[in-house]
């Protein structure tokens, strides 16, 4: 269960335990609900989403401020929230992979839909993606959890066009010779203006998109370049 690290609260082991349990329970309920492939199953999964959200971010969705639908936590807490989990293993030391990712300006090098990420300081950053008709879509995000060398978790800031949250975990593999990078991305599904934008930004198959992004990360860090080919006849 790679996500447990998202909930790690270094200063409070009781809270840590609670979050572990929260992640485990909510994930199990959501997995069971979704596996039913039925309306009650989806409702069950949706019902568990707020607990998952609290466990991942440490806050209950929709509480804490007055913002309504523009709030990331609200947008992601309903059945509209989509989860993508992808993982890749690469032959580079964990510290190097973490450092590359933590410098958020690097992300557009392998995340195809991103134009730029600018760090604003204080854990905040501005993200620009390619939207409809190549028009840029912009949102701000903040890092909500970070453990040096192990985990980075972020969410979009309330009021952004895009409601998204995610985490990336770096774990050692093969006796430390390799690093396993596990990404958990969450965002609101199609519906409304936000949904339309998201569908265009993230593509129709978000799992495929994230998998290809991670493949490019691996290619970039292992081989130093991302392989390309052009056809002879129309190069």
């Amino acid at each position, binding site marked *: 269960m790679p996500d447990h690290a998202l909930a790690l609260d270094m200063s409070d082991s009781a809270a840590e335990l609670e979050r572990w349990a929260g992640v485990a329970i909510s994930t199990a309920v959501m997995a069971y609900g979704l596996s039913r492939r039925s309306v009650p199953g989806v409702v069950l999964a949706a019902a568990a989403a707020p607990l998952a959200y609290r466990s991942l971010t440490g806050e209950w969705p929709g509480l804490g401020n007055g913002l309504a639908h523009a709030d990331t936590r609200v947008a992601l807490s309903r059945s509209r929230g989509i989860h993508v989990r992808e993982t890749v*293993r690469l032959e580079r030391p964990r510290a190097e992979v973490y450092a590359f990712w933590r410098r958020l300006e690097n992300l557009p090098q392998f995340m195809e839909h991103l134009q730029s990420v600018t760090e604003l300081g204080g854990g905040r950053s501005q993200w620009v993606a390619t939207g409809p008709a190549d028009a840029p879509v912009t949102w701000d995000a903040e890092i909500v959890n970070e453990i040096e060398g192990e985990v980075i978790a972020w969410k979009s800031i309330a009021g952004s066009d895009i409601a998204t949250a995610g985490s990336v975990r770096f774990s050692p593999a093969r006796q430390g010779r390799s690093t396993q990078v596990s990404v958990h991305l969450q965002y609101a599904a199609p519906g409304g203006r936000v949904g339309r934008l998201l569908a265009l930004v993230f593509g129709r198959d978000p799992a*495929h998109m994230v*998998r290809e992004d991670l493949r490019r990360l691996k290619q970039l860090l292992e*081989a130093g370049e991302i*392989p390309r080919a*052009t*056809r*002879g006849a129309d*190069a």
Partner: protein
Amino acid sequence: MKAVCYYGKEDIRVETVPDPAILNPRDAIIRVTATAICGSDLHIYGGYIPTMEKGDVLGHEFMGEVVEVGRENTKLKLGDRVVVPFTIACGHCYFCKEQLWSLCDNSNPNAWMAEQVYGYSGSGLFGYSHMYGGYPGGQAEYARVPFADVGPLRVPDSLTDEQVLFLSDIFPTGYMAAENCQITPGDTVAVWGCGPVGQFAIQSAFLLGAERVIAIDRFPERLSLAASFSKAEVLDYESVDVPDALREMTGGQGPDACIDAVGLESHGTTLDAWYDRAKTSLYLATDRPHALRQAIGACRKGGTVSIPGVYGGWLDKFPLGAAFAKGLTLKMGQTHMHRYMPRLLQHIERGDIDPSFIITHRVTLDDAPEMYRTFREKEDACVKVVMRPAAA
């Protein structure tokens, strides 16, 4: 530049296409001095390879002179004379580090396509479909070589193009097929298919210590090449019952190892071969594994069946029960080119083998459409076609 392009099943054209350019820092551009048609190109010609597109430049056996290098490529210099391996490898992923070069993780830009069919993708290949990267091939005047600081092998001027060209695929492929047989002194190896890979497998089996090699085919010129140049005992499967003959020649024990150098378009005269033909023609099966079935049936208990022949899909009536009952080892896969090229160049330099013995046709790029047909039909005693773009 001029290039040999795929336009559909049995439709090969020589077209003028844009010259290749450096796209990535580790690239090189090669001016092709010699290139060959491979038996596996005939699978493309026959329409068996999915994800080919009109206009794709063919060819994965080529060599030439380095005319341009990317900024990160510090290994190659302009003017270097190199042979290019047909598999593209990054040199830094888990598989490259483990010497499993043809399984490189980072060289196929379309890995997701292969993953949908096979679960995981092998390395990118030159001129061999978009599922394997969509890289333009080497049957052209120029070719772009990705990760060129890892793949291309410099060759000495004392050797001719014809002596070293087959380091690009078929010599290492035949060699790996023989190495996979785990030959010990005194062993007998049977080889199905006396095409170029089969010929190199025979010679490599002897290089690796086999006492006897028995070669199986039906074309007189290929059988005589196997007998005269490669020193194999030969069987014409149209005139003898191969399993019976192999049993008799090995004192009832069977060959210690069997090599299927035929692949997915196997021809045969037995009932199962006609059954395969009927099913593939109705699109009810993808491959025709007649030679492989026979190899598994003939191999001695505890022996090895080595498969350099190409397979692409789902095999019908595959005798896994026989393989299990006899405790066989099956070894297969695309050749780990980079592992073998330097040592095989040494064999050529020492005169242990002169790979040019298989060449039957020397032509220009313009002759490619006709030569694909000639090679496929095995007309004019065609065994191996070499094209010289510079002479065109």
